């Protein structure tokens, strides 16, 4: 009953040991003799009685018949599946939002977009917004002047 490929594995391990060939042979002989001894006793070992096997089979059948007995196993499978499904739904929703996002105003669309934006604003908000736009434009002018001066001096 010793494991398959036992001799091969035994020799591979012994290859790594620094043992003399004589000692190596002795180890292999000892192990084989021990295996033979256990084999001899294995043949004489009592077998399980039929009524024990029948009782075990009854318990297995009873467990299989009760759906609750397999519930933990199902839960184990269902839980990752539910998590995966939820992750897919969230991913699809995010992609959908990204695809349908409002496009950035281009030069052509800027004016209508601005008008649409300003339509919902109160007068005070509009003033503040115009001030900010004016500030941006002023910054642009300052930047452009600085650029021209830099080019002229170079």
């Amino acid at each position, binding site marked *: *009953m*010793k*494991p*398959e*490929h*036992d001799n091969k*594995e*035994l020799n591979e*391990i*012994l290859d*790594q*040991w620094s043992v003399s060939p004589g000692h190596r042979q002795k*180890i292999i002989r*000892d*192990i084989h*003799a*021990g*295996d033979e*001894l*256990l084999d001899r*006793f*294995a*043949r*004489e*070992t*009592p*077998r*399980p009685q039929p009524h*024990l*096997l029948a*009782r*075990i*089979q009854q*318990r*297995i*059948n009873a*467990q*299989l018949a009760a759906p609750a*007995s*397999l519930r*933990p*196993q199902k839960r*184990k499978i269902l839980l990752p599946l539910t998590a995966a499904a939820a992750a897919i739904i969230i991913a699809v929703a995010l992609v959908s939002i990204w695809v349908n996002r409002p496009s950035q105003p281009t030069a052509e669309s800027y004016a209508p977009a601005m008008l649409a934006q300003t339509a919902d604003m109160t007068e005070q908000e509009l003033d503040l917004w115009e001030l900010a736009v004016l500030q941006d434009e002023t910054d642009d002018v300052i930047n452009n002047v600085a650029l021209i001066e830099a080019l002229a001096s170079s």
Partner: protein
Amino acid sequence: MEQKLLAKMIRRCQKGQSEAFAWLLQQFGPDLYAYFLRTSGSRTDAEDLLQDLFVKLLLKISQYKHEYRFKNWLFRVAANLARDHFRNRGRQPAVQSFDGDWLERSRHLAQTAPSPVQQLQNSELLDQLQQVLGQLPQQQREIILLRHYGGLSFQQLAEHFDIPVNTALAQVHRGLKKLRRLMSENET
């Protein structure tokens, strides 16, 4: 045992088919029983452990991956079960000798032994072996029995007991050598 048939039966077990479990019980029950008997030294414990193992297998078998050898996997589950069983009961296995009366033991042996004289000799030898196994250190005994009945390789033993593979081989060598020495001492 044909590996294709075994794989098919395991898949059926994983689907919860009762007949497939019955087949596994017929195939592996005797070796597992012998392993539990040698580990515990008690027929009552061996019977309890075999029952518990198959009930546990109902849930555990879904975790079995077909790339591993089933018998090795099964015996590793059995070894863990036996260890938990004795730990929970707060005692070491009664490996010194078989429990129960002599008549019952010889009745078991009658199934394999042809004559009453041989029955007696076999029974005495089995008792001797059980006593000698009880004299080995616990881990050494477990390693020897798991290798012998479960067919675990030295590498698998090393993984199971979390020891280097060289130590696993050394334990097997020392244990088997001691087993033979003690048996021959008892015979003289």
